[in-house]
């Protein structure tokens, strides 16, 4: 049985990491990062089967691809706290000569990252390719991916969504972070996404909805169901309903903190709402 308290404690520490990382360099994307903290913790601590160490091919382990690369702070924090690299390296986020680039990349050789992302809409195709390679290699492990909801406005996703069902990519679980926000406002105001569940189902995917996407238990339950749906001839989509900026009250329920760092005072407020658990980097 997963230790829920330990997972929640880790999530709180990840929130602190995110706030401190973006505050230090006065740039980066805290909103979406905070909204996905529980998901990343659940994925890396409980859901995915991973090997010790890191190699690019990842044969015999589950793979993860982050398509909405701007939420790199949560990715880096959870990778570091899952042992891919030293947590002290979080100090170098977005600084010159760092492996922790503004958006994730393989270019500097950061363990845990297998593809560059940031220019939106490309990650699902890459995840499908990795899933196809696993099938060719008779590798039974799974491929996971995460995408922003606003990111689905990029047309390449729909090419990928069509391909995945048409070719029975049933070793893929693509999660959509449904927070309803994007840079210019709500997704409803910028370009409505419509009924994503019906859209994915119409495209031939199995769909799992996680209504409480900031609740570790709900995420574990939903992702367990998603895993049980793999291997049945259909790709699996998880619609993860999250709150952008979750865990920091003044950042929640708004797109204002999509790509804006807190000032000193705001950082102090945010950290006070998330007391240190595992130790700051």
């Amino acid at each position, binding site marked *: 049985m997963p230790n829920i308290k330990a997972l929640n404690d880790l999530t709180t520490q990840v929130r602190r990491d995110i706030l401190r990382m973006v505050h230090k360099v006065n740039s980066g994307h805290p909103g979406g990062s905070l909204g996905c903290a529980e998901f990343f913790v659940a994925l890396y601590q409980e859901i995915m089967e991973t090997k010790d160490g890191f190699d*690019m*091919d*990842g*044969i015999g382990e589950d*793979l993860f*691809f982050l398509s909405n690369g701007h939420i790199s702070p949560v990715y880096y924090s959870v990778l570091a706290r899952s042992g891919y690299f030293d947590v002290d390296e979080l100090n170098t986020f977005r600084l010159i000569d760092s492996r922790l680039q503004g958006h994730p*990349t*393989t*270019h500097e050789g950061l363990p845990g990252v*297998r*593809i*560059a*992302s*940031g*220019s939106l*809409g*490309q*990650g*699902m*195709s*890459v*995840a*499908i*390719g*990795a*899933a*196809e*390679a*696993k099938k*060719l*290699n008779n*590798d039974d492990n799974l491929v996971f991916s995460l995408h922003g909801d606003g990111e689905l406005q990029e*047309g*390449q996703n729909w*090419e*990928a969504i*069509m*391909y995945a069902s*048409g*070719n029975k990519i049933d070793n893929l679980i693509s999660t959509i972070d449904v927070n309803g926000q994007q840079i210019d406002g709500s997704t409803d105001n910028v370009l409505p996404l419509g009924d994503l569940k019906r859209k994915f189902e119409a495209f031939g995917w199995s769909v799992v909805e996680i209504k409480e996407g900031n609740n570790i238990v709900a995420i574990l339950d939903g992702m367990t169901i998603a895993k049980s749906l793999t291997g049945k001839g259909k790709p699996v989509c998880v619609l993860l309903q999250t709150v952008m900026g979750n865990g920091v009250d003044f950042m929640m329920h708004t797109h204002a903190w999509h790509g804006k760092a807190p000032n000193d005072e705001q950082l102090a407020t945010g950290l006070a709402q998330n007391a240190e658990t595992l130790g700051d980097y």
Partner: protein
Amino acid sequence: MKTYINTGNKDTRSGFGAGLTELGKSNENVVALCADLTGSLKMDEFKANHPERFFQVGIAEANMIGIAAGMTIGGKIPFTGTFANFSTGRVYDQIRQSIAYSGKNVKICASHAGITLGEDGATHQILEDIGLMKMLPGMTVINTCDFNQTKAATLAIAKYDGPVYLRFGRPKVPNFTPENGTFEIGKAVKLTEGNDITIVATGHLVWEALEATKSLNEAGISAEVINIHTIKPLDEKAIIESVEKTGCIITAEEHNYLGGLGESVSRVLAKHRPTPQEFVATNDTFGESGTPTQLMNKYGLNSEAIEKAAKRVLTRK
């Protein structure tokens, strides 16, 4: 002067298909992806021999590039196939982020490059692709001249670990390089020795350069023809050594003079040995419908254009 025999006209895309067929048998990690142009790319035989390693993605080139990038994770060597226009301009950002910046071992194989695509017209004739691809850090750019060389290049790039853009064409053209010849990425091939002028050509213009050399020879002008099949990395040494002897140079390519082979050569010469240069290339224009021969003639991409350029550049020595 060394002469070359056309062993019979063949299309370079069939050289790619023949190479891919051979790779299918010799390298089980080679996979092929196509965006609804299997016959045009001559990928049918690979598909028939290895249906499990052939991936039809439909009319969705962006997705094809991303899938190819992903398939390298797990050790596959993906060869993507579509027209040059849809292999580059249409998917530039996908190539840039998912392949080039991510350092993925994908071979982007592009047929129907340039104006010799012919009757379909300018929507499909890309004359900017060499420029687009050579600007990407880490991308190798190859433009082969005939069937045999395209087959050899297809085999060679499978052994090279890194992203490659392989450019070839639609029409049947003279096949004159050695059958089963070796292909060394980044190594220029000197086809004729000459003292008066260097002609550096790539793709379909290589044969035209050889044809021009015959007439120039009759006029007492000795031309050194270099086949630059790899535009990036460029064999700078071969170019510099040749112009040290001849003192002037022509570049010839089925591409816009902006961004093409000619500019790459100019950069090398400006840095190491400023040399008079003339450009045989399209003049910052789109193409149009017509037969390949009509178009090559109209847009000045033939042996006659090379001869004229030779006479111009000789006056500038």
